[in-house]
């Protein structure tokens, strides 16, 4: 599946499907491939940050910079694996794992007070002051049984978000 051809073989599709644990149908993968080629304007085999930002709906999203870091340099197979967290067929665990990765900026498996604060800052911008954010976060953490110095690992996230209703699904349009 080179970056030169814009045709997917059956073998390529199956490989991609395998890689994303079969959460996307073959038709959806073909659709995603067309979308990938559409976004990858210079046909380099991956979508650059700039190419992602040319989608205004993505550029105005508060978490776009964080996601760009995760999307940087992904080839098509990895791109589909990234999006697999948003398929209706994915497990709740996979979705929580994705959210954990968004928080865990330095990918060390631990989410600290500062990590959460950073995401909060991305989401709230100038609408809350830094003190307000820290106050709210500290209070909420305490009430949940953690402290300012705790670092949360994936299993903590699973416990916290485990029985909530995570609506994180995206429909892949089939041309």
């Amino acid at each position: 599946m080179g970056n030169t051809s814009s045709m997917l073989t059956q073998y390529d599709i199956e490989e991609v499907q395998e890689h994303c644990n079969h959460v996307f149908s073959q038709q959806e993968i073909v659709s995603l491939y067309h979308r990938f080629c559409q976004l990858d304007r210079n046909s380099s085999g991956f979508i650059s940050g700039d190419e992602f930002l040319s989608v205004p709906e993505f550029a105005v999203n508060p978490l776009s910079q964080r996601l760009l870091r995760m999307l940087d340099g992904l080839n098509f197979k990895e791109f589909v694996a990234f999006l697999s967290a948003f398929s209706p067929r994915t497990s709740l665990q996979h979705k929580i794992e994705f959210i954990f990765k968004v928080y865990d900026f330095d990918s060390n498996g631990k989410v600290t007070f500062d990590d959460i604060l950073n995401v909060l800052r991305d989401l709230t911008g100038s609408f809350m002051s830094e003190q307000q954010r820290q106050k709210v976060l500290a209070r909420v953490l305490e009430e949940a049984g953690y402290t300012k110095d705790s670092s949360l690992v994936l299993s903590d996230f699973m416990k916290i978000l485990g029985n909530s209703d995570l609506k994180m699904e995206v429909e892949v349009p089939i041309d």
Partner: protein
Amino acid sequence: MAGLGSSISETDLDRPSIEEYLAAESIRESSKKLLLRDLLDISPTLKEAAGAIVDDSFTRCFKSNPPEPWNWNIYLFPLWCLGVVIRYGILFPVRVTTLAAGWIVFFAAFFPVHFLLRGHNKWRRKIERKLVEMMCSVFVASWTGVIKYHGPRPSIRPQQVFVANHTSMIDFIILEQMTAFAVIMQKHPGWVGFIQKTILESVGCIWFNRTESKDREIVSRKLREHTQGADNNPLLIFPEGTCVNNHYTVMFKKGAFELGCAVCPVAIKYNRIFVDAFWNSKKQSFTTHLGQLMTSWAVVCDVWYLEPQYIRPGETPIEFAERVRDMISVRAGLKKVPWDGYLKYFRPSPKLIERKYELCQPLQFLVKYKQN
């Protein structure tokens, strides 16, 4: 699919503002406490981002769908080959010759008139206008344009502007064939720029440059001056600001709608069966685009001149622009999209991004929590 980006007016009407939340002390509704899980749950925002990655309404506006190949079997393929031979071997040379002949006649008549009749401006302008109209007809003939005009022909009156949806620069040629419009255009390089400078001056043209930030005020002023001149050709404006693929319309810029004069909408719809007239300026030069048109069978389109509109009392220019866009979209069968065409060239402004914070659910929740 995750929701489309909201336009600015939509956010004003639908969502209460942050200030309301922060100010009101009496918000004690179901004193739902903010739990850690609500704070950590960023799924709505992530969902929107993923939705934008998978499909977004803005990119769809500029997608040129290649026609389905129909020449795939044993008897259709030779037919298609014959078609190619006719198109490239017979039609194309004939068209190029016609166009060249047209240009020669045009220049032979235009330059003498332009210089010799210097003193008699009224006559000079009349003849130049007619010449430009003739040249546009030659252009249209060079792609075998089959154009159906509906509605009353534009009349030359002061205090009116014409607005149309934009698919390619040939929109201008098609409309100019019928009436000599003055036009407002982006400065182009190459031979197009040369034509802009010499010939289009005669019908009256206003230049703008997307890349210059102060440009908008200068252009506004020029527009106003033009519409007030009784002798000027009616002004044709493409308020989308960029070429769109003739299936969608992007938001209209309000410049044409705050001049205080009548706005006459014109809707243009191309028939894709013959050729896709969308000019994707990022993918092909205008010359290539013309070449593509000249090697197709025909350019078929419908032009509707719609009823002149006036701004209603209490209506803002933006609302007026949206109302006219609605008329044009309905008439030409186009879908409306809430994005600014200039996002093709520039990133969203910080102001637009700020607006998105207001809609952010965790933020609304957090602000509610502050009251508890």
